[in-house]
């Protein structure tokens, strides 16, 4: 990689997560804060840094497969490379989910348009039996969440439980049609590491939004 650059004289290295903000180093090493390999600054201009390393804390360590609303079968790692804004809902929910979904739309609306292609908004169903890909697709259309940046996921009872455990989301089926659940919106960086969680309904989205923008710009 280095051989290809013509001007080798002043390559400086920086943590891709900018743990120490703009601090640079003259040669390769690991970031003293997050322990990631620091990268030549020129490399960071290119979008979606090509580190194949998945850290210990990344949700991409989960190897379960999921169905999308488009009927595709994916693993979470297929979402790698974009900032992820994730929430758990179920489509037959009448109480909190419409507000959670509204919160998600609200957040999305406030993201500068030029960043949207680097962000995925992911809604994971906690009711995989009812929420088939077809049902999720209908829900997406009804709720104006059918654009590229929205993804809906159907898992199995076990994979959903595992995923909820990673997010520390609690839920319980309280009747055939209803679930009690935590209202948590989680943000992951493009490497799948949790960077922020917003808890509660109708709370001020400001911090969440700035965190999404900051996370996305870091890799932009």
């Amino acid at each position, binding site marked *: 990689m280095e051989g290809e650059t013509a001007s080798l004289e002043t390559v400086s290295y920086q943590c891709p997560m900018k743990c120490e903000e703009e601090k640079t180093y003259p040669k390769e090493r690991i970031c003293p804060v997050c322990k990631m390999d620091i990268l030549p600054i020129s490399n960071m201009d290119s979008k979606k840094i090509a580190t194949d390393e998945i850290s210990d804390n990344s949700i991409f360590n989960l190897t379960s497969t999921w169905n999308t609303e488009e009927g595709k079968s994916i693993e979470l790692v297929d979402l790698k490379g974009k900032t992820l804004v994730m929430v758990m809902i179920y489509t037959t929910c009448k109480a909190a989910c419409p507000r959670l979904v509204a919160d998600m739309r609200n957040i999305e609306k406030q993201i500068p348009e030029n960043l949207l292609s680097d962000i995925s908004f992911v809604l994971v169903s906690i009711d995989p039996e009812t929420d088939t890909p077809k049902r999720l697709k209908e829900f997406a259309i009804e709720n104006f969440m059918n654009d590229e940046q929205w993804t809906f996921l159907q898992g199995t009872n076990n994979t959903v439980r595992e995923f909820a455990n*990673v997010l520390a*989301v609690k839920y*319980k089926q309280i*009747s055939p049609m209803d679930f009690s659940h935590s*209202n948590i919106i989680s943000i992951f960086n493009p490497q799948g590491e949790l960077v922020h969680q917003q808890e509660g309904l109708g709370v001020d989205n400001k911090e969440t939004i700035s965190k999404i923008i900051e996370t996305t710009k870091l890799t932009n």
Partner: protein
Amino acid sequence: MNTILRLSISIILLWGSIANCQSKMVEIKGGTYIPLYGSDSLQVSISDFYMDVYPVTNQEFLEFVKTNPKWKKSQVKKLFADGNYLVSWESDTALGTTQSQKAPATNISWFAANDYCSSQGKRLPTIDEWEYVAMANEDIADARYIENYNEYILSWYEKPKTFNNEIGSSFKNYWGVWDLHGLVWEWTSDFNSVLISGESRKDVDNDSNLFCGSAAIGATDLMNYAAFMRYAIRGSLKASFTMKNLGFRCVKE
């Protein structure tokens, strides 16, 4: 003569070790009961299933780790287990010197327990299943109203360090299941459905009649303080947490 004797001894030993490898299960006949925290209808229906007779032991978990290196303590991902995972083990493949091989495996995260059961074609029990079996004493299926049943459990909660006692050292219940009370707490598949932790009061859209502030009032049986303790513990856990007095066992359909 000597050879025959030796041969038969070795056969007995071999048979013994095979029987040991396969953790025994017993059938649990399904039924309905009212758990501490009910669903809408309060009654919960349990289908027939099989449950491990004993909690998974240190020795069994060690074998599992040897064949599943991702669960070695040096290799486990932080996402799946906290820093105390297998903390008492001397190395990746050796128990600690004070640990008994036949004591329940503890300092195991939910993810590790879940994977262990899957690897055997089994799964973790649900809270409702676990509680259903655990309400039995030696003689009857539902002993929750029997005074000395509750006293036994509560006196265990007060005893320190029971996690290093060997399996089969507490009591065998009505179903033939050992050690549900007396050695360690146990993981359940849906432990995170208990909505009574501090934070859940603000971030959960639960029906307040069912969960919110239901710490005492919502309990079907106010006397059932022991069960309440278990729900409280479950409500405070995260799946990567590991504790010295938290083990697990598996079930299957």
